[in-house]
């Protein structure tokens, strides 16, 4: 059985379309990542699934319970951690935990084994007020509070946004342990590099799912040959590469540019290298690389934009029928 089933869900805020025809299935016991930039509709989808928001169209269910009809049932079996820290700042760590346990009709002791791993890290500060905790500890407390009633599905809306690299890694380790205890984890993130830590991901943009599957499946479907190009100065190099024949796309990735080339072009690496050297760029390096999720996202987003108008007409036809 699927832990979450989303079928053709749409949501608009006035004229702004937040979600258009989203369909997804999340299997029981997996970590499913919803990956997309800010404003893609991630939080809207989370709020619909956690029964905080009504969709304009489509159906969705969590653990077999409909988000509209059985909203009360869903609230009993899910844990939700919103993107913003939203616990009682004026209550202590222990009080917050006890409060949320009570609200869900249980006690901290009863489900202590669920939160032990995480809670043990913040236990030394149990009497400190939540507002006085550091960012990383706040996050751990929020996770404890979301887990204290032993939910079967855990919703985490951008849990790692604004968290440092070490805490992020810690956090994903915790998620792996939570998953191991049998909880389905539905997590959203704007960080593409976190995709590989999920069992399966869906890429979302402008309210549409542009691809979904295991990270390796998405990466393997990347159609072009990809090269990492280095040279100085960087920005003129990017502009130069974009105007070069045979280059399909070129994006800046930190210290290198990722360059997509039609795979049928023979000996592309050598060609690019000699071209940029002769154009006067210094310290040039070109390597063929394996595409990551971000490359795939860029490619899919580009394709999505191109097809935008065409798809728009198709959808309005659907709505009429």
């Amino acid at each position, binding site marked *: 059985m699927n832990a979450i089933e989303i079928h053709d869900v749409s949501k608009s805020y006035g004229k702004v379309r937040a979600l258009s025809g989203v369909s997804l299935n999340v299997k029981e016991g997996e970590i499913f990542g919803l990956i997309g930039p800010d404003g893609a509709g991630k939080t809207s989808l989370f709020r619909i699934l*956690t*029964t*905080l928001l009504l969709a304009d169209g489509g159906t969705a269910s969590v653990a077999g319970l409909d988000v509209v009809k059985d909203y*009360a049932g869903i*609230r*009993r079996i*899910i844990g*939700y951690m*919103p993107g*913003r*820290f*939203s*616990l*009682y*700042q*004026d*209550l202590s760590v222990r*009080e917050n935990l006890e*409060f*949320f346990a*009570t*609200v*869900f*009709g249980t006690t901290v002791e009863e489900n202590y084994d669920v939160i032990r791993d995480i809670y043990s890290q913040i236990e030394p500060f149990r009497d400190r007020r939540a507002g006085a905790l550091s960012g990383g500890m706040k996050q751990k407390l929020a996770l404890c*509070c979301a887990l204290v009633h032993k939910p079967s599905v855990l919703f985490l809306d951008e849990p790692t946004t604004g968290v440092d690299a070490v805490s992020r890694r810690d956090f994903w380790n915790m998620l792996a342990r939570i998953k191991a205890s049998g909880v389905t984890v539905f997590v959203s993130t704007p960080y593409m590099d976190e995709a590989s830590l999920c069992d399966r991901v869906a890429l979302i943009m402008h309210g549409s799912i542009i691809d979904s599957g295991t990270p390796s499946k998405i990466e393997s479907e990347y159609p072009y040959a990809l090269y990492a190009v280095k040279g100085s100065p960087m920005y003129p190099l990017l502009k130069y590469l974009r105007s070069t024949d045979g280059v399909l796309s070129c994006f800046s990735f930190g210290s290198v540019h990722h360059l997509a080339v039609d795979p049928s072009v023979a000996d592309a690496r050598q060609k690019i290298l000699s071209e940029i050297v002769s154009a006067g760029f210094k310290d040039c390096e070109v390597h063929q690389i394996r595409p990551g999720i971000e490359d795939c996202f860029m490619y899919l987003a580009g394709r999505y934009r191109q097809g935008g108008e065409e798809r728009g007409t198709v959808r309005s036809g659907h709505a009429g029928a």
Partner: protein
Amino acid sequence: MWKYLIEKEFRQFFRDPMLPRIVIVFPLLMMLVFPFAANMEVKNINLVVVDNDRTDISAELIEKCTGSGYFRLKAVCSDPREAQEMMDRNTVDAILTIGQGFSRSIVTGEDFPVGIKVNTVNGTKGSIGSQYLSDCIMLFMKQFAGDGSSSPQTASGPVIDAAPKYYYNPYMDYKVFMVPSLMVIAVTMVTGFFPALNIVGEKEAGTIEQMNVSPVSKTAFIVCKMIPYWVITFFMLGMCLLIAWLVFGYVCRGSLWGVVLFTVLHIMVTAGLGLLISSYSENAQQAMFIMMFFVLIFMLMSGVFTPVSSMPAWARAITYANPLRYYADAMRAIFLKGSSVADLWYDAAGLLAIGVTVLFWAVRSYRKTS
């Protein structure tokens, strides 16, 4: 679960750096300072007399006026322009002009020349001042006429002597009148606005979202939020009654159960209002501004400070929708007059009608936003 929710509210309340202090200080201030400050009695009216008569009788009149305790004699001069100048400079509030031949006219009973001029930049002070002044002159005249056995006035016919007797507040003590009204204001603030700010606070902190995904129903959550404030309200009310008794010696004439009943009815209104405000505002600032708006209208149009009956018809019409009008009226009647609840059915019905409307609206708007 309910117990724990309420416990949490109390805990947060006492942990707040401001709220517990406000609850203690607010009624103290209301009861100990405002009855003296928010006072309609006018005292210390600065008076200048232009005495053109300069006789014993005119001097007696001046003494009569200054002896009343309401006036402070600034100067006696003979030039009206000088007196006018003093008023222009704002050193005096009233000018009493005694014309030439005053002493003669008063004996013969002719029209006698006395003029009163008041500075009405402060309208209340001016009108009340001139009232006092003319009262003094009338009193003086009457006494004078009584002294002279062969006064022509007594001979001309019976003089009607109307002596007012003030019921329920025999000494016309303004403080007695204000004490129950100030309790009304204190109750309104605590039951209406504190919970509204609290709910908006949870909205701002995002914690309300966290509660919404829990099995706790919205109703239970909100009711549990309000209960502590209701408890605190009755604590405050008790404190107000105690202060009124200890400091002013005022005891509620009517039954305390009547006070409790009307307070409960009023709480129904303010709770609904607080909910409405919190459901329409996104943050504390917005909520504060909406409250300011309501507070001003409620207070000025409630009859607490100025009688409703002296308002123009259109303003009176508005007061019918003002819960404070009914609550203040009922509290005054119970407190000063000892009215029973049955006597005040009109106020109870008013509060009930407004309460049901507001609560209905509040619950609907809450559903919509969910």
